[in-house]
């Protein structure tokens, strides 16, 4: 039975490697810019949702305010770049650290809240962050920041002529987030998180440091999401508060994981692979993001999933059976 467990872990790793290899070949065949764009966003949201899943799925602290960390990553990178000439790679790291620290600072009071109260707090905090950036003159206020284009370069991480470099970075982000999850799943932290999610009182009685395991999950989760935010800022080369810290980002991080299977290793990837292309294609076909058709699709999907498969699509693949000895 230990062998089963080890085999399952190895199998996950092999599947991930194969999928990555296939994905890495895609730009050789797909030259259409619109399709490339969709693929990049899909990979990015897979990575973001995977990171969100660490705090909200594994540790059970549902956050609908992760747009804050996404925006902080974007803003830290671009403020450092435009004001101080710091290369985006360092800005990315700085954004991650800033977000992780802020996530822990916010966790200190808010991890005392449970359930819905915690969710509400995350929404409110992200909205406050949005308002602060709206009014912060030095950071461009509502006008935002335009990233000066200084020619294609890996050093400055900007590419005006081709989207392919962004594709590979998004792929890397998704891989890193997946691998971090895979690795933490079979660690003390992974077990602590699931225990905290299922029953904090029992966890405490078994020596689990409930508060610090939430803090740890928040820090890892916020760091990775901020890296995603930095990437997005470089990718779109213009940021303003709404376009990197809007509530829709919080939703778009949560939905793939919920659709695919919250608290599962593959859920976010699967969810993003279905949801993001669907969203982007409908947006493309029905014109603009104002029409709301994409929102109707989210809504319908969520209703269908919660009715038919409340544990997400992954529950179709792996469901420990009452009698069975495998998982």
């Amino acid at each position: 039975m230990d062998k089963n467990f080890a085999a399952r872990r190895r199998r996950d790793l092999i599947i991930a490697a194969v999928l990555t290899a296939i994905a890495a070949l895609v730009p050789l065949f797909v030259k259409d810019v619109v399709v490339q764009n969709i693929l990049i966003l899909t990979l990015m949201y897979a990575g973001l949702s995977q990171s969100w899943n660490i705090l909200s799925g594994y540790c059970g602290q549902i956050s609908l305010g992760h747009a804050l960390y996404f925006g902080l990553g974007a803003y830290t990178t671009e403020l450092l770049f435009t004001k101080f000439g710091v290369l985006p790679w360092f800005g990315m790291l700085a954004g991650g650290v800033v977000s992780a620290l802020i996530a822990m600072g916010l966790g200190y009071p808010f991890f005392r809240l449970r359930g819905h109260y915690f969710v509400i707090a995350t929404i409110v905090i992200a909205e406050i962050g949005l308002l602060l950036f709206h009014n912060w003159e030095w950071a461009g206020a509502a006008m935002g920041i335009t990233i000066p284009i200084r020619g294609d370069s890996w050093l400055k991480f900007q590419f005006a002529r081709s989207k392919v470099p962004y594709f590979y970075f998004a792929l890397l982000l998704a891989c890193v987030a997946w691998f971090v999850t895979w690795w933490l799943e079979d660690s003390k932290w992974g077990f602590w998180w699931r225990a905290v999610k299922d029953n904090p009182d029992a966890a405490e009685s078994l020596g689990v440091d409930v508060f610090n395991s939430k803090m740890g999950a928040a820090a890892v989760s916020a760091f990775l999401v901020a890296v995603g935010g930095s990437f997005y800022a470089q990718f779109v080369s213009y940021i303003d508060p709404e376009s990197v810290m809007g509530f829709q980002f919080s939703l778009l991080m949560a939905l793939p994981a919920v659709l695919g299977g919250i608290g599962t290793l593959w859920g976010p990837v699967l969810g993003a692979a279905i949801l993001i292309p669907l969203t982007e294609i409908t947006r493309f076909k029905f014109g603009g993001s104002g029409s709301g058709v994409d929102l109707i699709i989210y809504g319908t999907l969520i209703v269908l999933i919660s009715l038919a498969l409340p544990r997400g699509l992954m529950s179709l693949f792996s469901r420990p059976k009452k009698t069975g000895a495998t998982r």
Partner: protein
Amino acid sequence: MTALLETRGVWQRFGGLVANSDVSISVGRGEIVGLIGPNGAGKSTLFNLIAGVLPPTQGSIIFDGEDVTNLPAAARCQRGVGRTFQVVKSFETMTVIDNVIVGALVRNTVMREARRKAHEVLEFTGLAARADVLASDLVPAEKRRLEVARALATEPKLLLLDEVLTGLTPTEAQTGVALVRKVRETGITVLMVEHVMEIVMPLVDRAIVLDLGKVLVEGKPADVVRDPKVISAYLGDRHAVGA
């Protein structure tokens, strides 16, 4: 020999309600002690104070020679206090083995060792065949057993059992009794809260009867059940005379 656990003049008030008043008990190493008493006697409160769910209003709790009065539950677990819950609190979305691994991680930082320890405990508690089943799919008696297994995986010096035998069929209860005896044989001290006198009394070395938040009587089970004060606490004053 010093006691493993001692409560010294412990009080617990909830607003105007006094749940424990001046409770001083001690549990020796290797003993099985039963904590009994009618409903509302303050057993669960005392139990929670010992486990570290909340600090007492007054008094102190000494475990293994150390004052643990102000330590939270997790820290007490690290020092060797394991507990079960009266209302079972399994990690429902996790498998049985994963539930137990959480406990095993207290003393094993390497996952491989924690997993091995967890398997060992499942063998010991007779849950090995159910290792890969989700905790939510266990029947109630198995869930009780899982509570014990999880606590044992933390390698406690003192195991606190909160009504683990209550609500079981007679056969299940007998298996439970056998398990508690087996636990003691491994050198673990047991303090158990129990309702069902006829099951507990043959099992424990010593019984402590609580009533109205105070220690009423303490002694050998055979003596305790004959004590008029105990009979009147359970059955009312009328019955005490005839006993």
